[in-house]
């Protein structure tokens, strides 16, 4: 089995080139048709998944506005989902009351990148919820960061005014510390790092535009 072999004769090369050209054209057409027909459905699925995640993090959630963060630090209301990394979700209940914002973050864990979302309340400057979106951590050890009840309790009211970090299991003294899962230190530390860096970056932006976000425009 080898790649295309050139016979060297131009007369014999032409039918080969013709055939390859037709095959490539056919393949290209098929790919483009597939992409066009599935694009809408894929986007719909992604939005649905996002809504579910936000719903879990903000109890009482009914409506959301997706804000895109411009490089200048200004906010822009997005129609669709926008680009990952430069957006956050503001959640409201059905009377239009502001519930909080949900921000995405990610960092390198034990095996691969961990992607997560967390709920942040700008009024109390605390993190009120945490949810893993995607991870490849060790089953039974690292991947307990997504399901271990005691670990997730850390995020019921995590102080974001001070730098957040994970400490050894049982050594938590301050409200800005996370009690790591014993046996899953690397994964727990990754969670601490990703929350810290995200909150440091996003909290000022949210605070600056808080009136606008609360109004919902």
């Amino acid at each position, binding site marked *: 089995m080898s790649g295309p072999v050139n016979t060297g004769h131009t007369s014999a090369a032409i039918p*080969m080139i013709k055939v*390859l050209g037709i095959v490539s054209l056919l393949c290209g057409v098929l790919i483009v048709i597939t992409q066009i027909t*599935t694009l809408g459905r894929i986007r719909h*699925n992604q939005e649905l998944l996002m809504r579910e995640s936000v719903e879990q993090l903000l109890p009482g959630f009914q409506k959301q506005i997706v804000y895109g963060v411009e490089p200048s630090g200004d906010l822009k209301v997005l129609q669709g989902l926008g680009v990952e990394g430069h957006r956050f979700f503001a959640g409201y209940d059905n009377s239009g009351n502001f519930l909080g914002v949900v921000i995405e973050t990610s960092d390198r864990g034990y095996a691969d990148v961990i992607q997560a979302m967390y709920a942040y309340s700008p009024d109390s400057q605390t993190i009120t919820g945490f949810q893993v979106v995607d991870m490849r951590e060790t*089953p039974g050890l690292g991947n307990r960061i997504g399901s271990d009840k005691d670990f997730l309790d850390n995020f019921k009211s995590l102080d974001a005014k001070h730098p957040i970090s994970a400490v050894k299991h049982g050594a938590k003294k301050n409200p800005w510390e996370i009690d790591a899962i014993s046996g899953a230190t690397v994964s727990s530390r990754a969670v601490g790092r990703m929350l810290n860096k995200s909150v440091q970056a996003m909290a000022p932006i949210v605070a600056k535009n808080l009136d606008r976000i609360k109004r919902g425009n």
Partner: protein
Amino acid sequence: MSEPISCHTPTAPPTTDNPFLNGLWKQNPVFVQVLGMCPTLAITNSVRNAIAMGLATTFVLVFSNTLISAVRKLIPNQVRIASYIAIIATSVTIVDYLVKAISIPVYKALGPFIPLIVANCIILERAEAYAAKKPVVKSMLDGFGMGFGFAFALTCLGTVREVLGAGTWLGFPVFGPHFEPWVLFVLPPGGFIALAIWLLTFSSWRSWRMKRKLAEENSQLVRVSEVA
């Protein structure tokens, strides 16, 4: 001891009258031909992923077998492999979008292994050994057979790994709440071990059947020679 070192081991001559059953059992791509090892080991840590990967590969096999068989007489010999690879890569791109459109969690779980279906030995082997020579309907059936055979093998492996390694089957708990999962089985070494055990099971079953057949034939010969 030298092992037959080729992409696949020599197998029993295929039964050409039913390509579907052939691919499903007699020339099962994983247990008999020992092809397509990469996804077999990587994706089988849960039954859901195993079935999804099996179906995706079946789609690619059927699509590429059918298309290649349809155009087999039009493609000159020298550009044969290049065209096959182009068609296979196209069907993999299509299945990539389809899986994403059907279920994003499954898409994330399968990860880079969907595009890696292109490098799955099974597909190119079937294209060259079968689809390039046989008519369209037979090639399509062969695609289904090999694909379902592959899915069956993946499910066998996935069952063992998920039941032992997580205590569930397709997400449903199999044992009670006090079951301590044998986590090794959903980790890489477990994949190797589970596949080794399945291969041993099937090859010993086959050799037992072969011995029985030989014993029957021998006893028949003895009877014939006694009569004569």
